[in-house]
């Protein structure tokens, strides 16, 4: 009896799963990057999906017969929807696409301008796509061209781009531009996404002819359409407005003398003070930025071991940051795209007023909000040297 019961349970339990989703590893085509483009058609536009597939045979060590040749293969196929393009791709490749390994999804600029929600819906639903995948916009190029570009150091270009993004977050002031982030912005009704752009640069020097990829400006979206690019100058300020630190070095003019002081941020805190009336009038929004930093290099011959000089430098840095923020805010407000999640912040502190008064016509309110910023800076350390080496010579 016990045995019978056990067998019944086992049979039911084990037949509820099964071998049908069993796939041997070598039956997968490991996708390292996905590219999406739009191909204008007569009746309807088609989606062109490009995948960068890792040629695993070329990865292995020579003993295992790691063949020579490119380590990746770029294939494209079109379809009316993304999944259709994907299945067309599978027909072409002969293996199943392993999307989990995709590190970046690149969207062609044309597609980005015409709207990307429809092509990304599949990625949002598909459990096989990782939300941490970087979502990038190819500037001036199609995604297909971008994915074809090789990289000198990494045999898989997608890996190189991912590394570039991850490191850039720490050093070069790159915003979080993942699939997750995009969907978060899209699902917050009043916010808009902001993605990192990548650009193919053709080098000018004669000995290097290959194009290479660089991180470009930041793409500002309105809803799911790309509306403008934020230049590096403009985008620097945006980063101060998020609660994640700007990690890159700041180049501040010494003002009193020719040259620059390079400052690195150690700790960073951003708070928002809001003054909003019951009727929904936004009297003021103040971004308070508080940071501690250290001097890492200087080209001007000023002795920063002198506290007076140092506090001067602090003031210059403060003005520098304030200016950055001001430019960024101005640009964003002009574009009328709340990529800084300001609406979401207001919703958090004044949910009632937000839903009654502000949410519905945020796009009219947002460009007009008086936003101020305040910066508090403390340069704590100047490194292992006191006076710069050129100090006495200048005297």
């Amino acid at each position: 009896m016990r045995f019978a019961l056990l067998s019944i349970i086992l049979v039911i339990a084990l037949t509820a799963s099964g071998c049908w989703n069993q796939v041997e590893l070598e039956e997968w085509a490991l996708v390292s990057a996905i590219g999406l483009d739009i191909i204008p058609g007569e009746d309807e536009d088609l989606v062109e999906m490009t995948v960068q597939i890792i040629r695993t045979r070329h990865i292995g060590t020579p003993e295992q017969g790691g063949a020579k040749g490119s380590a990746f293969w770029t294939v494209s196929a079109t379809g009316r929807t993304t999944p259709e393009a994907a299945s067309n791709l599978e027909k072409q490749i002969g293996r199943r696409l392993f999307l989990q390994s995709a590190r970046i999804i690149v969207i062609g600029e044309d597609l980005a301008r015409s709207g990307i929600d429809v092509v990304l819906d599949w990625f949002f639903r598909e459990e096989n796509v990782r939300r941490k995948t970087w979502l990038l916009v190819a500037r001036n190029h199609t995604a297909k061209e971008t994915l074809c570009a090789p990289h000198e150091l990494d045999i898989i270009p997608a890996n190189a781009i991912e590394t570039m993004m991850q490191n850039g977050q720490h050093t070069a002031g790159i915003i979080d531009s993942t699939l997750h982030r995009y969907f978060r912005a899209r699902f917050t009704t009043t916010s808009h996404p902001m993605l990192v752009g990548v650009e193919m640069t053709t080098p000018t020097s004669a000995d290097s002819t290959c194009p290479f990829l660089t991180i470009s400006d930041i793409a500002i979206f309105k809803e799911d359409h790309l509306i403008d690019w934020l230049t590096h100058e403009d985008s620097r300020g945006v980063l101060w407005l998020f609660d994640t630190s700007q990690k890159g070095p700041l180049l501040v003019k010494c003002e009193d003398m020719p040259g620059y002081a390079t400052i690195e941020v150690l700790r960073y805190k951003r708070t928002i003070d809001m003054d909003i009336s019951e009727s929904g009038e936004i009297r003021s929004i103040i971004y308070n930025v508080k940071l501690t930093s250290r001097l890492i290099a200087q080209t001007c011959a000023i002795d920063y071991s002198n506290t007076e000089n140092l506090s001067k430098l602090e003031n210059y840095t403060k003005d520098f940051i304030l200016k950055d923020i001001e430019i960024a805010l101005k640009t964003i407000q002009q574009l009328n795209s709340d990529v800084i999640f300001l609406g979401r912040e207001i919703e958090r502190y004044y949910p009632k007023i937000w839903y009654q008064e502000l949410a519905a016509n945020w796009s009219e309110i947002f460009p007009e909000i008086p936003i101020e910023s305040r910066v508090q800076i403390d340069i704590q350390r100047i490194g292992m040297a006191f006076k710069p080496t050129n100090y006495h010579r200048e005297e």
Partner: protein
Amino acid sequence: MDLQRFLSAYKYIKRSSPAKELKQAEEHSFSIPIAKDIEMTKYLLEETFSTANDFVIRNIKLSTHSGILVYLDGLVNTMTISEHIIKPLFAAQDLKLNEKQPLTHIKESFLIASQIQEKDTYADAIEAILQGNTVLFLDKIPQCLIIDTSEFDYRGVQEPATEMVVRGPREGFTESLLTNMTLLRRKINNPKLKSEQFSIGTNTNTKVLLIYLEDLVDPLVLQEARKRLRSIKIDSVLESGYIEELIEDAPTSPFPTIGNTEKPDIAASKILEGKLVILTDGTPIALTLPYTFVETLQVPEDYYSRAYYASFVRIIRCVCLLISLYLPGIYIATSTFHAEMIPTDLLVTMVAAREGIPWPVVVEVFLIWIIYEALREASIRMPKPMGSAVSIVGALVLGQAAIQAGITSPIVVIIVSTTAIAGLVLPSQTDALGLLRLPFVLLGAIFGFYGIMWGSLILLTHMTSLKSFGTPYTEPFAPLDTIRLRDTIVRFPWWFMPNRPGNLKVSRRSTSLNKALEGKEDD
């Protein structure tokens, strides 16, 4: 029964009858008293040991009686016989023996031997001869003297090859029961250390000792062990494994419910935990019972080295236990069902390694596994000089050629060898786990993690249902005993385990066994 008539019948039977009747007749003959006529005795013994070439009958002549000394050469110390039996008897040749009890007279006055017994049946005499005693028969006396002269060669006390330690006693049990008992007595100098003798095996009459410390042992467990030992019906016992299989609680389970050890210090520690030890003559492997699962993780050295290091090694052993059980199954499951769980970089390497392998990953795992098991078995069985040849072939075939030929991927070789090494870390008790790897490999290959999860559930259910002589197998995890938990995955320092030895508590026993045992006592 008249001996004369018996002998004629005996001769007749031996010539004509089948073996069964002969055997009955022999058994019958042993229980009859010793004949007064020494010729009869001589004849009977010669018939009994007819083809034993080591059987010796030595005639001696005393003043009033003639007699024979009977022994099996090889089991006895001939020096003892000549110096301590024959020499004094010859010296006393002219003396007049006590009329009524000449044997007692000889025993008390002449023979120089520590153990001498008077017996009056052939059965006793023959048994004694077989055990290496010398038996003295005198004409016209229906008794015999059994003189202990036994001496035989056995291996000295050596370090056992199976349970090596860096720190701790090196000695191991030998094939001699007496030596083994001595080794235990030297560890536990306590008159409460009891040993009960059983004789098991209708053909071999192997001596088996049940050893325990009277104060600590659970009387119900002791009673149950005695009962099980007594009820053994088998023709031969050549190794303690026979006994283990016959008295264990769950013979159908892959898990052993009786432990074994080759080291006296382990056996002593088990006795001091209130457990029982069974020593079998002729084998250095002692059985310990009750046996619980945590003992697979315990090694004597854990208790000899400092607690921190011992605990660290225990944790490593636990990890190895899991690795040796699950690793191949999990590898197959992840690579065929859950590739998304593998970090991308690793996945690329794995796929690259899999390219061009002609069969599914399960087959690959089985292939390497079988080769490994074959190598392992070969290295145990083969003559020592061939070791290097086998290891070269093994290393080359496994490590190099198979991968280069594209028969298997290097990752599978790594997986299987890691599993094998992890399995070897565990004390040798755990052969069960080596077998259980197989179902997990199959479950992983057919159902993925889902199957492995089911397998684990069934395994745990089975383990918790096991009992060893009334002690739950998964004690002290289930049922939980927080005090005894201190000596499981980590070993607490001795000063943190005040209640040692944790006697296997009666209350922890299964109620059904309790009832059964207590019911017996009432009867």
